[in-house]
């Protein structure tokens, strides 16, 4: 058997039987899906305690409309129509007469009531809110033209979002009243129309018939790309960081000198890379099978076309090869597993950049920024996959251009890693610096 494969077989079997791999199989989806799990838990057990909100209405005519609109929303949203279970908190309102002589004192008093948990929040409707003035040159709207919301809730405050509809609805009702519209016609005049996302139409190549558009859920545009990318990121990251520590530990145990007498550094590093790729494919097969099972049970298999899975595998292999080679090189340059943990951040940083820019790329997959970023080889696996998975789609040549770049990148990194590995693996007692690693890679 080829020496690379002999090393790969040993490393693969050693890793797959280890506890860290089995623990990682469970931890990876937990880490990737922790946000969804949190949302799920919150939905399963929502906070339904009553929330009292005070309204200081400086227009003098709006509070009643806002409260009326809010009560309608309360009645509509409060209970699950099928089970009768309460889903959202009941909002209770308290109208406060405005104190124009000392507005700040009044705000402070109300703030203290919020701090004392007598109120959840209070809102102040500016006296020009019915007819807000145009923004000034800086784009700011004066306080008199706004509705200010005061609370000590965190950054994501569902009450503020909940109130947005009733407040604007209330203001519109007040305006219609001033215009002399019959209140009985308000519901009809202010009816909200749903905007439905639809897929594009296409013609069936065999029958020539026009295929009707289908409804797209918002989840479809988000969950598949997000889940695939997070899966790729987590698998690659956990595999490569554990490899970094394993190589450093084996170096400390001095296992490599004897191996180097039997196999070349390139055989050794490629064996490790192949084992890491095989390991990541093993775990991803399990995850993808589980994902397809869930989608098929929800009759949503179309959300994950086979071509997307094929690209996922290609990017996983490419990304794993690069990071595994870098891990082996950096692990070989460490004096101890502790040093390897410090160096892990250097390994992780390039992998994190695509995660930082995920949102703008998902919002506009075909922008110049998204295209350019996804064609930079270290970022290609995550960003190109993200763009390909988006419902918008991308030009067909781009994945292949990205693939060409990443093949070159993979070859270059593996070659450099083998040069570093050969020098660093026998140096004991001192961890190499990053500039030193570059020197070894360049000069050999």
């Amino acid at each position, binding site marked *: *058997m080829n*020496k690379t494969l*002999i*090393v790969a077989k*040993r490393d693969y079997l*050693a890793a797959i039987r*280890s506890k860290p791999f089995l623990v990682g199989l469970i931890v990876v989806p937990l880490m990737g899906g922790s946000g969804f799990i949190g949302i799920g838990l919150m939905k399963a057990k929502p906070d339904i305690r009553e929330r009292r909100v005070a309204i200081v209405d400086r227009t003098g005519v709006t509070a009643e409309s806002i409260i009326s609109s809010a009560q309608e929303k309360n009645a509509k949203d409060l209970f699950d129509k099928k089970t009768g279970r309460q889903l959202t908190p009941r909002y209770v309102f308290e109208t406060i007469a405005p104190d124009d002589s000392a507005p700040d004192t009044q705000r402070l008093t109300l703030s203290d009531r919020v701090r004392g948990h007598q109120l959840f929040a209070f809102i102040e409707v500016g006296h020009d809110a019915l007819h807000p003035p145009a923004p000034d040159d800086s784009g700011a709207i004066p306080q008199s033209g706004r509705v200010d919301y005061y609370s000590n809730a965190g950054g994501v405050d569902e009450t503020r979002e909940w109130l947005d509809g009733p407040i604007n609805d209330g203001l519109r009702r007040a305006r219609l009243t001033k215009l002399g519209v019959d209140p009985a016609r308000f519901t009809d005049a202010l009816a909200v129309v749903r905007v439905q996302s639809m897929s594009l139409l296409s013609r069936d190549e065999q029958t020539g018939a026009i295929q009707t558009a289908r409804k797209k859920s918002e989840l479809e545009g988000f969950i598949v790309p997000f889940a695939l990318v997070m899966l790729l990121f987590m698998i690659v990251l956990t595999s490569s960081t554990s490899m970094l520590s394993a190589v450093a530990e*084996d170096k400390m*145990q*001095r*296992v*490599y*000198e*004897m*191996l*180097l*007498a*039997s*196999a*070349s550094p390139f055989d050794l590093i490629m064996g490790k890379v192949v084992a890491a790729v095989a390991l990541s494919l093993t775990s991803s097969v399990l995850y993808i099978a589980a994902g397809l099972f869930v989608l098929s049970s929800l009759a949503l298999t179309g959300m994950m076309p086979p071509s997307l899975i094929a690209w996922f595998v290609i990017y996983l292999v490419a990304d794993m090869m690069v990071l595994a080679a870098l891990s082996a090189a950096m692990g070989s340059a460490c004096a101890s597993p502790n040093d390897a943990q410090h160096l892990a951040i250097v390994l992780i940083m390039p992998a994190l950049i695509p995660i930082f820019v995920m949102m703008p790329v998902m919002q506009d997959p075909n922008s110049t920024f998204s295209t350019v970023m996804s064609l930079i080889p270290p970022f290609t696996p995550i960003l190109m996959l993200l763009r390909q998975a988006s419902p918008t789609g991308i030009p067909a040549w781009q994945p292949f251009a990205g693939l060409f770049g990443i093949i070159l990148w993979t070859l270059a990194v593996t070659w450099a890693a083998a040069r570093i590995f050969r020098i660093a693996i*026998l140096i*004991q007692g001192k961890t190499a610096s990053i500039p030193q690693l570059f020197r070894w890679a360049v000069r050999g």
Partner: protein
Amino acid sequence: MGNWDCYHRPMHAVETRALTKTFGDLTAVDDLSLTVPQGSVYGFIGPNGSGKTTTMRMLVNIFYPDRGSIAVFGEDSRAVPSGTIGYLPEERGLYRRMNVKPLLEFHAELRGGRNAGPEIDRWLERFGLAQFANKRVDTLSKGMSQKVQFIAAVVPEPKLLILDEPFTGLDPVSTDVLRESILELRRRGASIILSTHDMGVAESMCDYILMIYRGRKVLDGTLDAIQEQYGNDTLRVAAANDDCAGLPGVEKVRDLGQIRELRMTRGCDPQDVLRALIARTRVTSFSVAKPSLHDIFVRIAGPEAAESSPPKAIAAQGGSHE
């Protein structure tokens, strides 16, 4: 005459020419030429840091020389199949979480050995490790691990075995088992290169001895030939009185406990020394001898020599293997 290459010269196990290796400003091995005859035990001696391990690493292609050439059984060392050479490094290390037998099978496979199971079993039996075949390496004692690593170096059986300080850390019983195993491999035709700090091992086991000092070869030949270079300049004396200092013609006295070793100056007559000694004390034993390897080592690399520039290579006359 053994094997002959196309130039009708005997094919040696190893032949290096002007081997040089530098690390930054340090020249670890400097212009080293050596010849290891097939079927011999060839000992590397020299102080720590003199270049023995670097030379061995070059022989097994872990390091590549900056200059010079290495031929193993007449071929460029880089073209030699890895199964030809068995290597036991000075820095012992094995995958600690693997079981003993799968680990040995992995090493054997990497060295080109197929179906090495029975051979591994024989070695485990020989070293008394058969019951540990399915135990993890990290459950073994240091000595046992060292024996396992030796087995990894000799399965499949190599034509050339390179051992970097193989006896370090072993108890006398294990040392005997290992020594006997090495000599048996030699009897079966293997060529052995070993490094050692134990001059007794070098004297008793090695057909040829090479001493490297500061990266350069300073001794090379059979023990007899090396000792011949120094002549019979050593006196071994047992006497009632310990005081041998200041004897005429004696430049150095080494106290070995029961006896003293006296080094004579060139041209000194042992009879003169004996007469002076008898005048001082009662002599119970007196012999004229060649210097021991230990003494030669110290003369070359001891504190006095270390202050001077490295001595030139002493080519062994007689018994030369070239």
